[in-house]
């Protein structure tokens, strides 16, 4: 039974290709978030979202993806506790800046990027 299934799978290279692509898409970005942060492309902003420190298309793609995911999480938490998503985001920003590793970039009160 199992060998039969495997055979049909092998007979359908498109299916294999799809399977491979789906596994690959888990890490679709050439740069990971942690790399983008430690290499100084991305930094933590006061508003709870990532910002672009130096222009780089790869880092920007990572930033947009992560920010969208963050937004969804903020909205979930906000809804659950009957507060605004902006409040949740702001609190998250404070925490994220506090938790940023040394040498990575954070936004200061004046809105400027500073190396922690």
């Amino acid at each position, binding site marked *: 039974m199992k060998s039969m299934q495997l055979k049909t799978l092998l007979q359908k290279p498109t299916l294999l290709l799809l399977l491979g692509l789906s596994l690959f898409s888990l890490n679709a970005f050439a740069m990971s*978030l942690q790399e983008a942060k430690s290499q100084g492309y991305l930094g933590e902003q006061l508003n709870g979202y990532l910002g672009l420190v130096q222009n780089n298309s790869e880092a920007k793609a990572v930033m947009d993806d992560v920010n969208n995911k963050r937004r969804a999480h903020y909205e979930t938490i906000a809804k659950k*506790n*009957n507060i605004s998503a902006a409040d*949740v985001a702001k609190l*998250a920003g404070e*925490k994220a800046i506090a938790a940023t590793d040394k040498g990575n970039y954070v936004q200061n009160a004046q809105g400027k990027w500073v190396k922690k």
Partner: protein
Amino acid sequence: MKIIQLQQVSIGTLLLLAALQGCAPTVKIEPPDKPIVINLNVKIEHEIKIKVDKELDQLLSDDKLF
């Protein structure tokens, strides 16, 4: 002589008592005409903040997001 003294003392005491009566404060206990309102908003807000804090801590531990 003794009677006069006694009268003086008793008058004195009466005067003193009268004076003290005037000093005695009257404490009136009246039920409030408005219902008593206890504001719990502060406590609730504080609890929400603690909850959000905890949820954000979990979120921040995800190194794919933070």
